[in-house]
């Protein structure tokens, strides 16, 4: 099959899947089978595409041209391929997890849930494979709209309010900032295609480049740079599988992925260096990554803590891009994959804890390690990976980002990265420590009757259903695998930085 056909398949499979899911609403088992089948098919297509990309191909697909010179077109470069692979693989895992989570918690409106999930993945594919800024923008907006029903899944006043924040910030920034940025790019460069080395060099003065960079970086609200990060904690009202795949992987990674792509293929890191426009972005990202970690410390709700941790980790990627060196771009690209595995593990664990023990607050989690040993072990691995410590894959991406900071002489930022790692430890380790070492008596007795077998503070094992447990073990193993096989990832991304003529390497 040609690359174009495969791209079309990658876009249509989730769409068709959503349709079939909606049609099979009467039979939950069939419906979930459709979800799994769709996810597996999508991953297979991604693997097939990735083989081509590894061979140096650039699969392309051109759909239509609504306005002159700006087609709806797709072209896959290594970073997008990596993003597509990660998202589609984790969708399979999440689908299994969702079955366990949604059924164990007796959630309503499950058909809408699975259908929107499939649609959101379709939008993610569109973002990952997009060949120009307009196509990216369409996928980006579609992703916002298709995830809205998932965020407001519970349909109570709280989730509707959170949904408004979510939609308001994401749509607002993208239309008010990103779209003007795209139009201005079109006016200046006469094209919206992603090209190695960027399309803006030599078309605008330094001041305009600075302004454009601002429009892009704050317009891409999904990258959650402070002060436009509020939507992400708000999105945590969603069921945990949504937080896990969408608000730790697909949506937020779409944000930093687009940010990175804009930096590399629209501005070009040479232009960013020569115009000095990246300087302020470096600092905003640094401030975000430290501040968000501090805020995470103050959160007792586990999911909120994870959300702020995500805000901090996203800033790593933006920082990596803003440093504008080969190491930085490589580190940023790798961090997208590394953090995806680490954070999805943590969210899976949070959901498993909620499913098995109905606990959401960190302060209630004393002694749960004895009831849920597998879950808490996975949590430990995920936490280490996110903090950037062995044996987690996050080690390597942080390593490269720190290298980039050192190389460009930003010693303060190297310090900030280390401080952030410390803060990561400070907000993750107490959870693990409390789970293993705090006395079980600290458990609040207030919970619904009948859901737990041993509420007496005994040593009874009480893991979440297998449908939850296996996925979270898998992703934890993934974190370790990424630590061991990081060089493969590096090879995969290498073509992206080959053309870059900056110092380093």
């Amino acid at each position, binding site marked *: 099959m040609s690359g174009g056909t495969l791209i079309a398949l990658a876009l249509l499979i989730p769409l068709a899947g959503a349709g079939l899911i909606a049609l099979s609403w009467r039979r939950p088992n069939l419906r979930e089978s459709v979800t799994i089948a769709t996810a597996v098919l999508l991953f297979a297509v991604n693997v097939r595409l990735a083989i081509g990309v590894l061979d140096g191909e650039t699969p392309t697909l051109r759909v*239509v041209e609504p306005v002159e010179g700006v087609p709806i077109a797709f072209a896959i470069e290594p970073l997008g391929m990596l993003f597509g692979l990660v998202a589609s693989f984790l969708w399979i895992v999440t689908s299994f997890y969702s079955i366990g989570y949604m059924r164990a918690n007796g959630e309503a409106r499950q058909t809408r849930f699975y259908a929107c999930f499939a649609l959101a993945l379709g939008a993610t594919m569109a973002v990952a494979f997009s060949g120009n800024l307009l196509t990216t923008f369409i996928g980006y907006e579609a992703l916002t709209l298709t995830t809205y029903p998932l965020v407001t899944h519970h349909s109570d006043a709280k989730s509707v309010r959170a949904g408004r924040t979510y939609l308001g910030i994401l749509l607002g920034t993208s239309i008010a900032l990103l779209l003007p940025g795209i139009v201005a790019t079109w006016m200046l460069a006469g094209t919206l295609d992603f090209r190695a080395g960027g399309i803006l060099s030599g078309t605008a003065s330094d001041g305009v480049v600075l302004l454009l960079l601002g429009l892009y970086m704050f317009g891409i609200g999904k990258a959650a740079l402070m002060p436009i990060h509020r939507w992400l904690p708000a999105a945590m009202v969603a069921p945990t599988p949504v937080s896990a795949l969408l608000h730790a992987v697909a949506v937020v990674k779409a944000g930093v992925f687009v940010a990175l792509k804009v930096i590399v293929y629209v501005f070009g890191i040479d232009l960013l260096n020569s115009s000095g426009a990246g300087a302020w972005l470096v600092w905003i990202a640094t401030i975000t990554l430290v501040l968000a970690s501090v805020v995470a410390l103050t959160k007792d709700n586990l999911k909120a803590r994870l959300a702020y941790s995500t805000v901090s980790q996203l800033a790593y990627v933006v920082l990596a891009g803003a440093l504008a060196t080969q190491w930085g771009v490589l580190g940023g690209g790798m961090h997208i994959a590394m953090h995806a595995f680490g954070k999805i593990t943590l969210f899976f664990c949070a959901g498993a804890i909620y499913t098995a023990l109905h606990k959401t607050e960190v302060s209630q989690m004393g002694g749960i390690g004895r009831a849920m040993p597998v879950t808490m072990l996975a949590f430990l691995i995920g936490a280490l990976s996110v903090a950037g410590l062995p044996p987690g894959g996050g080690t390597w991406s942080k390593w490269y980002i720190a290298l980039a900071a050192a190389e460009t002489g930003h010693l303060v930022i190297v310090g900030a990265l280390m401080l952030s790692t410390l803060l990561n430890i400070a907000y993750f380790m107490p959870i693990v420590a409390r789970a293993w070492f705090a006395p079980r008596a600290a458990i609040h007795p207030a919970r619904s009757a009948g859901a737990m077998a041993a509420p007496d503070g005994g040593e009874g094992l009480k893991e979440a259903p297998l449908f939850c447990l296996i996925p979270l073990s898998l992703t934890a193993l993934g974190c370790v695998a990424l630590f061991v096989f990081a060089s493969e990832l590096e090879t995969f991304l290498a073509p992206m930085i080959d053309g870059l003529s900056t110092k380093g390497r």
Partner: protein
Amino acid sequence: MGEHLPILQVILPLIAAPVCLLIRHAVLCWLIATLVSWVCLAIAILLLLQALEGGAIRYQLGSWVAPWGIEYVVDRLNGFILVIVAAIGAVVTPYALRSVAEELPERQIGLFYVMYLLCLSGLLGITITGDAFNVFVFLEISSLSSYALISMGRHRKALHAAYQYLVMGTIGATFFLIGVGLLYLMTGTLNMADLAEQLKPLAGSRIVLAAFGFIVVGMGLKLAVFPLHLWLPNAYAHAPSAVSVFLAGTATKVSLYVVLRFIFTVFGFEFSFVGQPFGPALLVLAIAGIVVCSLVAIYQDNVKRLLAWSSVAQIGYMLLGLSFATALGLQAGLLHIFNHALMKAGLFLAMGCVVLRLGSCRIEAIAGVGRSMPWTMTGFLLCGLSLIGVPLTAGFVSKWYLVLAALEKGWWPVAALIVLTSLLAVVYIWKVVEAAWFRDPPGTAGRIGEAPLVMLVPLWIVVAANLWFGFETSGSVDVAKAAALALMGAVE
């Protein structure tokens, strides 16, 4: 036969109207109206194709040679408008069968189609004629029939709305007539092409300037330019659903066409834009209209009213394109006439379906209606996205060219404003979408079903058009471009 198409375009509905009056049978009248509307659409398309290929078509009524006799002229600009008007008509009539039967008392239904046919004939006549006084005649035909149509709304408020429109509309028409009278006084001719010739040496004349003012303000009233728009929200909100669709898609568009025709063809670009600050004045009014009316739309509880306020704001975008006084701006404005007809017709069609089933289109009444009428509300959502200007819909294309036109002039703040006001559209469209899809239906509501197919099909034809013209834009963009260049061509 072929050479008589221009007159057939107008005379067919004009003759069909009294025929319907004699018949008075609801379904028979509907059948006649539908057939006539479709034939009109076919004629309009043929005329546009001829005009695009062979240049302007000139048709002398009764073979009286212009400028003494009345002349019908079809060029790219009004060929384009004719197609818009006829297409909306052709979509509305099948839809009206159920909608009107539900909303009007039995004995009025026949009369409804009489008035509709007169209105269609008037609007087509305004567009096709090349004679200034003839414009006034058709303007009155379309206006009087539309007052009657609006007053057929099922609430008493419809009478008040129609009366309000009647007063404002009559002032507008009178102003227009005064303007035409002044022009006749100065030149002794009513033929537009001849007027253009005769007015050239009179550029400095105060009287011509006064005529310009009367005509622009008069048509501005019919066109609902901010701040002359106050009749419109009530009229659209209280009219029968089918009438809201028809008027929202056609009436203001035709008025805008008359403004364009006069300022470009009759008075000329030099006189209108160079000799006086018409562009800046229009710019200010357009921006004020866009901002104020979008804000007002956000606070409406009745969805039809909300859409009506949004219409006034959208008229602002069309005028904005015009106010740039460049070919690209004009092209964007013309494109938005077409695209807005599509999106607003779609939105009103969807609301008509909701009214049919719920008897109301207040925000609290439509809570949860997305679940019981998924096709209708999906159509609403898609047309709403088009209104916002989301890529892959028609609305995006016109906004794109509008922004480009603003940037071409170097007006960054205006471009930013176009984008920012789209956000206001997001807010008011989302308000409806949230109520329809994400709220639980009120407990008192019984089971309601999807709208009948005869209404859904027209709705989805319009929805498909919104998507089609967002994908495959060569047709609409090229025609708008050709028309804009033809208008501006008089300049260079």
